């Protein structure tokens, strides 16, 4: 398997017209930078996504490493969420959405028949772009995942899971006295943290976060970033963010998307100090628009 990957890597590297603008050509563009890495956790090859007739992602090749954070950045509508949702087959439930190409998790094709999307999603957790708490109590929201997966054998254990999850998401202090209140009564930022707590309560091995801090104040943001750092020690994290500073702070690698194409990917420090593609440079220096 790894030999095939190496061949692909070499092939792509020889073809790479570094630094030139290739995003405009419809097909056969090449991602600038090291999209392929050794021992990837997740590996995507030639991923195309269509919403009905409309193509949203074009030939994405990207590896995501073990125990690291990769940040997806790019202008609005460029396909970051769409890509994220491919990784746990969340696009399956959108009618008319079609995913082509190969995505592997631990060298196992996640779109193959043997892969049960339910099990996949328990392993690959997700925090959605818009907070979507269930119309249940705060407690039941966090306990929902552990309950369906039988992670707690009794009430005390469940209480513990709920408490630690809420603490890690930095919400515990605000809601400890009203765990039985409806979650929909929380503020936008509180809901966002609740959804983070809900996602990490099932201990996923890969966490996909779609703009997890978009509604948070700087203090709550710092808590979440600290959580991401913590999670990185054991898990793989993919985070979509519109904040360059956040990408720089939390991620080891950064991928820049533009109009459905993966333009450039590389070490975060390298991308922000020395972007190779002009589109990337325009975007991170704020000249995009």
């Amino acid at each position, binding site marked *: 398997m790894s030999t095939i990957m190496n061949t692909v890597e070499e092939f792509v590297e020889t073809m790479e017209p570094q630094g030139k603008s290739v995003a405009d050509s419809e097909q056969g563009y090449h991602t600038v930078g090291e999209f392929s890495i050794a021992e990837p956790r997740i590996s995507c090859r030639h991923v195309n996504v269509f919403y009905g007739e409309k193509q949203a992602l074009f030939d994405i090749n990207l590896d995501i490493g073990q125990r690291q954070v990769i940040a997806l950045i790019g202008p609005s509508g460029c396909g970051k969420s769409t890509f994220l949702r491919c990784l*746990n087959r*969340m696009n399956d*439930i959108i*009618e008319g959405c079609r995913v082509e190409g190969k995505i592997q998790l631990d060298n196992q094709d996640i779109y193959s028949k043997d892969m049960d*999307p*339910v*099990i*996949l*999603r*328990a*392993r690959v*957790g*997700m925090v*959605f772009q*818009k907070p*979507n*708490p*269930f*119309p*249940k109590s705060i407690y039941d929201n966090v306990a*929902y*995942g552990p309950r*369906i*997966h039988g992670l707690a054998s009794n009430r005390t254990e469940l209480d513990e899971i709920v408490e630690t999850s809420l603490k890690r998401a930095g919400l515990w202090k605000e809601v400890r006295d009203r765990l039985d209140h*409806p979650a*929909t009564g929380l503020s936008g930022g509180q809901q966002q943290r609740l*959804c983070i707590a*809900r*996602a990490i309560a*099932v201990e996923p091995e890969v966490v996909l976060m779609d703009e997890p801090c978009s509604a948070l104040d700087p203090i709550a943001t710092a808590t979440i970033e600290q959580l991401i750092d913590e999670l990185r020690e054991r898990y793989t994290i993919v985070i979509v963010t519109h904040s360059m500073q956040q990408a720089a702070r939390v991620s080891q690698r950064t991928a820049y998307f533009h109009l459905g194409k993966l333009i450039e990917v590389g070490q975060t420090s390298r991308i922000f100090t020395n972007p190779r593609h002009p589109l990337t440079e325009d975007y991170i220096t704020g000249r995009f628009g």
Partner: protein
Amino acid sequence: MQPDTLIWILLALSALAFYLGRNRAIQASSGHIRNLHSLPTYYGYFVALWCGLPALVILCLWLLFDDKLILQMVISQLPESWRNLPEDQLSLIINQIHNLVAGETGRQEVDPALQRAADHYRQLKAIGYQALTVLVLVIATASLTYGYRHVSPQMRARNSVEKVVRFTLILSSTLAIFVTIGIVLSVLFEAVRFFSKIPVTEFLFGLKWSPQMAIRADQVGASGAFGFIPLLTGTLLISAIAMAVATPIGLLAAIYLSEYAKSRTRSIVKPLLEVLAGVPTVVYGFFAALVVAPLLRDFGIELGLKVSAESALAAGLVMGVMIIPFVSSLTDDALTAVPRSLREGAYGLGATQAETITGVVLPAALPGIVSGLLLAVSRAIGETMIVVMAAGMTAKLTLNPLESVTTITVQIVALLVGDQEFDSPKTLAAFALGLTLFLITLALNLVALHVVRKFREQYE
């Protein structure tokens, strides 16, 4: 002039007033519309409303009361002997006058006094219309001038117009309430008359229903019994059977349609289900009486049970089928209204489709589902035709679904069919039943409202 022509003229005048008002506002703004407090069209509406509304109110009041007035005048001109007649005979004469005015002379000779009265009536009416025309036109022009004079850049035309709009909205929303109150009062009035003859306690707690009253005083036998408990149990029994059929089937159908079916299947099955709702209840009645009831009977014989030819079970089953589309389409609406993001939230945690539906979608849709079910219950309670045809008319106090029972609505129909004196307890009992039916459905709706509100508080 006839009132309808007058209304058209008023409309035309108002349109004219609109233009006058708007143009005056534009002129007053001296070319800068920002100098005006409101947009020019608001000044137009302002003047138009001034022109139309007062005149319209007068017109309506006139039309409401002119008949009574004219009638009083006509009656005062009737011969002495007629005027002193008792009320019901006098109203007969008034009827004849009305007929004459309408041109229905009938075959017999017309009493000259009657003819004179009719002519008098017609004449008064014509004079009235002339007066009305003058009055309305004068008021319209006067108020138009008044409104027109008031147009100035500082005048708050928009606020005034919006006040009128708001008043109209309030009026429309209260209209339904007033109509309901009117209906309740009219039923209540008759019901009170019933309860003056039959004690409330007998009606509410009596266990026997057989509303046969002696029509003539010398008739033998038949003294009525007006205990409504057998009707209540019958109604509840049949409704319960119907809901026991419709609730699970309707819910499951809705869950399949909204959660599992592909949009193509859905676009075929949903209309088909809704066709069921379009079948007239009489047809369901036939089906119940001719197919289901005999089937049940044969089946019962095989099991060694005694099933009567008309049974609550047959009626309830068919009624259940009838309200399936009701339940399923309301539930389907409630389910599809649950946002996709909630489903995604559950799927994202590794929930299966079944877990997502039972754990997230159904609870979120519960208020809608419950209120849909309660509406379906009201529907079942109010259903008449199927029961008449399949469950019979005999009021029996039983909870055995294999026997024949009857319901409140069926008895209302039975009581009002045929020749009856209007103030006999038998006829009046229909109103008492109607009142109870109304109260039962009202209570159900209140419960539905309460349930919905309770879940709303919790979930939104």
